[in-house]
């Protein structure tokens, strides 16, 4: 399936939910925030939030800044 994550488009297969994606990317959920098609996905809902072809996601975290 085609996903646009943080502005980069790529194929991701065998993923059903945001949980699957976060796991596949090897990310630590509790330090993240995920936006799916402009709507924030609460951490509690990762497992229940399906992904479909063409979805656009933003996955962000905290970095140093002034």
């Amino acid at each position, binding site marked *: 399936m085609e996903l646009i994550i943080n502005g980069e488009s790529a194929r991701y297969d065998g993923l059903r939910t945001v949980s699957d994606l976060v796991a596949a990317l090897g990310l630590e959920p509790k*330090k993240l*925030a995920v936006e799916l098609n402009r709507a924030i996905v*609460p951490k509690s809902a990762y497992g229940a939030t399906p992904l479909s072809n063409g979805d656009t996601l*933003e996955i962000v975290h*905290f*970095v*140093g*800044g*002034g």
Partner: protein
Amino acid sequence: MSASLVIAGREFRSRLIIGTGKYKTYEENARAAEAAGAEMVTVAVRRVNLTDRDKPMLVDFLDPKKYVYLPNTAGCFTADDAIRTLRLAREAGGWSLVKLEVLADQKTLYPEMEETLKAAKLLIKDGFEVMVYCSDDPVYARKLEDAGCAAIMPLGSLIGSGLGILNPVNIRLIVEQSKVPVIVDAGVGTASDAAVAMELGCDGVLMNTAIAEAKDPILMASAMKHAVIAGREAYLAGRMAKKRYADPSSPLAGLI
């Protein structure tokens, strides 16, 4: 000594908030935060780097349990971007105390006050506790306070310029009228600038470049810690009057 600083119900012993940008390493950043005695640090919200996963992580150096993370909206030039960024920050961090800044242009990073006020109102409605970066316009400062902002954070001078407190009169007017904490954000270049800000009656100072770009950031962080205490205590102590001529300190009586 001076009582503690209370922002949105949270109590802080330190009146010095520092940024976490521009340091050579997060490790240096952590040592600076330690030396500054900071209890709150500003952080930015950025995309996770999916290609290089081994990059050092801020949270591994500055423990969010030890330092209150204050997510900012640096780099946002519209109210919408700022709101979207802070909603993501709230989801990532799980807290609602944030620093709002909506900037006008890349060259001056001057606050866009109309958009800033608009964003502040929407964020407060949405349950955020908003510490707001703003110009030193006392009228807009009043509007931001009336809108329910948790702290008013006027610039001393342009972000990263190190020019100090350019307009002490406006800062003084904002201090005189405000019931919420007033924190000078941006412009401090060296220790005496921070002392001057506090002597005007500000409740705190927020800085990043002055520490991060000092030749020795750790030592400058300590300098800033002392400067903020010095300025606060001098404000509370009430300075002597200035005089046009001299006034001897030793008694005139009893001279041989």
